[in-house]
């Protein structure tokens, strides 16, 4: 069994875990992160993409609202290129209650959330598809955030600071020693899900940042962390309906947010309490509800083309320990000002504020911290509070630096919708397009496949948006598989130097700054290059999962899961064409891969009612 040694071991490769690794590495800790699948495979990659201004929670969850607006300001500096400065409208429709808007505006002022009421006519002029019956509109600094890119950029910042990130390494055991009241976590055993090898990790401290899976991780330490898992269903439209984030100006409910993210608008969400973080069925009533509520914001949304449905799970947490213990547990945490509440019946009512569980005080387990709750918007703050608590346990004092440190790529400025198209046009890359819908060029795909952890095509989707457009993989899947096959069989010289993640979504990155990208990363150590290279199973001839047929089948299955729940109208027509391509022409359902499985094959077909994934 291979062994590794580290100071801080982070469990979970979502926004929070990656943020923790970045924060810890910046503070000089030797840091290792393990994630059982790809980075952002969980909730981070399944959210609607809203960078909250906090306004949504001003009347319901003041603590969360305060955290959101503060982090909103910080992330605009540290992750500029991952954010599109869309601004946000809170609109009052005839169905919304009368006194809420004034209370809302007052609460925004109280909490220092910048809020300007604008005439409804101006709002309609900017967003002509908005419901013309809206009576009042407030503009707030909401924005759209690319959680895939942000996490990858954070991951690269973490690597540059010396952290090692191991995706496709699943936690199997936490090493627990000592008796009651004096138990200590000293490391973990993880399984490399690609090679099947086990890895023994010694760590001074383990930070559980597994999001919706936090309860399961805590259970391995013999600690009970009762998560409130709130499933949220989202739908993506074929193209943007608005360029501004639209919120209903009312108490947060279902289907009252419309976020323009990249080329689509996402309407969300439901909030259904579920038992576990996987196997999330999407019910017909949830789709119907999103469409009905969507029509309140943009009349006709329900009749426009819906690309896909998917569900994510909010890792909500509300402390339910007896007051004596929980007071103790709040020590040094950001949730000091949170009153202890009854366990809410509905996950909609659970706080969105972050929850830091210091298990030494809370459960008498040393070397183990859980950071959960919160929003994507507050992931940096969550990381900060977790590493603050780690410093305290490790008996060192090192200030957090993330709020003042930009991740690679911020020099590109805010994301804008035309970014890819303008680069493709400027560099005349039209003939290089592999995924035509999302303008993914061959070089983007090759860079991602060779240099970023890649086990399935779905990993490349999260890297470069492969297959996320209208045809949902219809035309790019076979092309991408062919390219990976070519990479695998070609005698190409090994790729050296870390790929500049900051430009992974940039079609022209090869033409513009390949040299600077290499140079800026030469400082990052060889270990990190090893980390990312060894995981590129899709182009590694030795890896079982590199079989082209398997890559193809897995990705088609993954795309199908999100399309099946919304299969009507224009998207049905699309799927019929895709069916003709893959089943009638390529015979894809009879490819000789029956005895081969990727680590995700079963996930993609885990249930018949599809749980989908982001867009």
């Amino acid at each position, binding site marked *: 069994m291979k062994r590794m040694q580290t100071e801080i071991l982070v469990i979970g490769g979502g926004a929070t875990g990656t943020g923790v690794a970045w924060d810890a590495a910046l503070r000089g800790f030797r840091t290792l992160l393990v994630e059982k699948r790809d980075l952002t495979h969980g909730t981070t990659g399944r959210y609607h993409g809203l960078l909250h201004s906090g306004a949504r929670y001003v009347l319901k969850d003041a603590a969360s609202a305060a955290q959101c607006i503060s982090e909103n300001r910080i992330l605009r500096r540290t992750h500029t290129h991952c954010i599109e400065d869309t601004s946000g409208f809170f609109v009052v429709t005839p169905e919304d209650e009368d006194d809420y808007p004034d209370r809302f505006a007052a609460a925004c002022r109280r909490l220092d959330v910048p809020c300007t009421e604008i005439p409804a006519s101006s709002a309609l002029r900017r967003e002509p*598809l908005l419901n013309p019956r809206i009576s009042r509109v407030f503009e707030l600094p909401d924005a759209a955030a690319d959680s895939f890119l942000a996490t990858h950029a954070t991951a690269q910042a973490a690597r540059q600071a010396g952290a090692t990130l191991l995706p496709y390494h699943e936690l199997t055991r936490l090493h627990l020693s000592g008796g009651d009241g004096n138990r200590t976590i000293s490391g973990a055993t993880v399984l490399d899900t690609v090679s099947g090898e086990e890895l023994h990790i010694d760590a001074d401290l383990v930070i559980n940042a597994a999001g919706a899976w936090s309860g399961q991780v805590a259970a391995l330490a013999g600690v009970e962390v009762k998560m409130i898992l709130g499933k949220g269903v989202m739908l993506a439209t*074929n193209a*943007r309906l608005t360029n501004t984030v639209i919120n209903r100006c009312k108490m947060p409910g279902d289907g009252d947010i419309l976020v323009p993210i990249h080329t689509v608008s996402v309407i969300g969400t439901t909030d259904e309490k579920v038992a576990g973080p996987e196997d999330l069925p999407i019910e017909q009533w949830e789709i119907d509800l999103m469409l009905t509520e969507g029509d309140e914001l943009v009349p*006709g949304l329900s009749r426009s*083309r819906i690309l896909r449905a998917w569900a994510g799970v909010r890792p909500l947490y509300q402390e339910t320990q007896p007051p004596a213990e929980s007071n103790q547990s709040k020590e040094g945490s950001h949730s000091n000002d949170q009153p202890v509440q009854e366990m809410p019946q509905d996950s909609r009512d659970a706080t969105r504020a972050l929850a830091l569980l210091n298990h030494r005080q809370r459960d008498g387990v040393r070397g183990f911290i859980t950071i959960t709750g919160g929003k994507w918007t507050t992931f940096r703050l969550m990381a900060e509070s977790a590493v603050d608590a780690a410093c305290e346990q490790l008996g060192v004092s090192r200030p957090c630096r993330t709020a003042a440190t930009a991740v690679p790529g911020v020099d590109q400025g805010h994301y804008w*919708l*035309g970014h890819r*198209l303008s680069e493709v046009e400027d560099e005349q890359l039209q003939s290089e397009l592999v995924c035509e819908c999302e303008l993914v060029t061959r070089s983007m795909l090759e860079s991602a496949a060779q240099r970023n952890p890649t086990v399935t095509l779905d990993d490349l989707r999260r890297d470069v948006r492969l297959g996320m457009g209208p*045809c949902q993989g219809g035309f790019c899947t076979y092309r991408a598989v062919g390219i990976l096959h070519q990479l695998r069989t070609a005698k190409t010289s090994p790729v050296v130097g870390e790929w500049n993640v900051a430009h992974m979504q940039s079609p022209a990155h090869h033409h513009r700054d390949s040299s600077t990208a290499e140079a800026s990363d030469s400082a990052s150590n060889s270990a990190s290059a090893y980390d990312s290279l060894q995981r590129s199973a899709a182009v590694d001839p030795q890896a079982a999962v590199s079989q082209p047929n398997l890559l193809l089948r897995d990705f088609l299955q993954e795309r199908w899961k999100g399309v099946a729940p919304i299969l009507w109208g224009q998207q049905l027509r699309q799927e019929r064409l895709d069916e003709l391509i893959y089943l009638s022409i390529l015979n894809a359902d009879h490819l000789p891969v029956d005895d081969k499985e990727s680590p995700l094959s079963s996930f993609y077909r885990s249930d018949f009612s599809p749980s989908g994934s982001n867009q």
Partner: protein
Amino acid sequence: MQNATVNSVGLSLNACIKCNICTSYCPVSAVTDSFPGPKYAAPQSERFRDFGHPYYADAAGPISRPLAGGQMPDASVDYCSGCRVCNEVCPTGVRIAEINARARARIVAARGLSLRNRLLGRNELLGRIGSIAPGLANFVLHNPIGRRLAAALFGVAEKAPLPRWHHETLNRWLARTRAQRLRSDRKVVYFHGCATQYYEPYVGMAAILVLEHLGYEAIVPPQNCCGLPMLSNGEFTAAESHHRRNVARLAQYVDAGHPIIGTSTSCTLTLKEEAPELLDLESDPGTHALKLATWDIFEWLRERLDQDQLPSDLRPLDQSGQPFILPYHAPCQLRAHRIGKPALDLLAQIPGLDLRESHARCCGIAGTYGYKTEKYQIAMDVGAELFDYVASQTSKSEPDSEGSVSFTACDSETCRWQLEHGTGLPSRHPIELLAAAYGLYDLQARRPADGS
């Protein structure tokens, strides 16, 4: 602006299933890399533009929120010729050419309009100015130095087939021949378009003679440019004011139930479809009424034919005893009417006429497209398919139909000029052939048979 809905033109991109049929038919992307194809330019790129905002402008300027730094992300859409072959072949109904036209309007809004494109959009104004002294105007524009200057100063392709001003406008002919014009209870309105007014009044004469031969009085009320050249060049605001003026001028005839009949397929298409759709005027009552009242002349004549109202005194066209072989090209703009090819139905009534239908996709000129220096060669390459077809009719004759080709026929003016330029053969509007077959018109000299 009223009635912006999720199902308006721009959102027709939602119907795209990426099948590539449009790309494989596109005559422009087949001959140049400058245009990546209809699918790329319209449904694909539109998702990356300032999507969801139907085009319109008000006192405060165009509606679309300025893109980052006022940028329009793409430029290659300017190489779409607007021929609408893509619309014709799209199996799911994406308004590809319209999406592209709107994108060009946004480019104009973001980057401004070149003097050349402004001029090309003003063919009515050019026509009017030239008509003051047609001889001088023709001399200035049709000598090598003038053309070289126009190319250097404005970017108007030196070799492109510019029309010549006629010594008499259609209106002056109408005034001169007022006494001979038929008065009748059965009335139609003739929409001549700018080219007929200033360059080819004989097409209008042929049309009026045929209408009168059928017993209809042709009313030719004051009218102006339909706005298409401006729409093609992205100048939507000017196009809208032209369109609204036509709506106002024609309203009384539309209300009286008179059909509005045109010989220029692009003008009639603009009244029927392009202006209402591109300018978001579908719900404007005047626009809608005019749209429903407008006919292509052969579309209207075919109705008469179907109802046995067509005079049967059609005579063979004389060609010194030889069979008259006529290659006919249905212009893209006519195909966009989705009315079939009514000119063929009518010309087939002419005894002894050997009609040969071209299946070429486009002649290349596409309105003002082929007049632009950077697009001239593209237009010629697109047209090669058609030119070759015409040449093949001339050279290789089938054994049973020996004959020579003296004319080609096409419904659209710029296409005829391009055809003449590409084949060296004179080209005629089908209405000229019909008028000649009725003995009303001299096909060679292009004037009424009675010499008026």
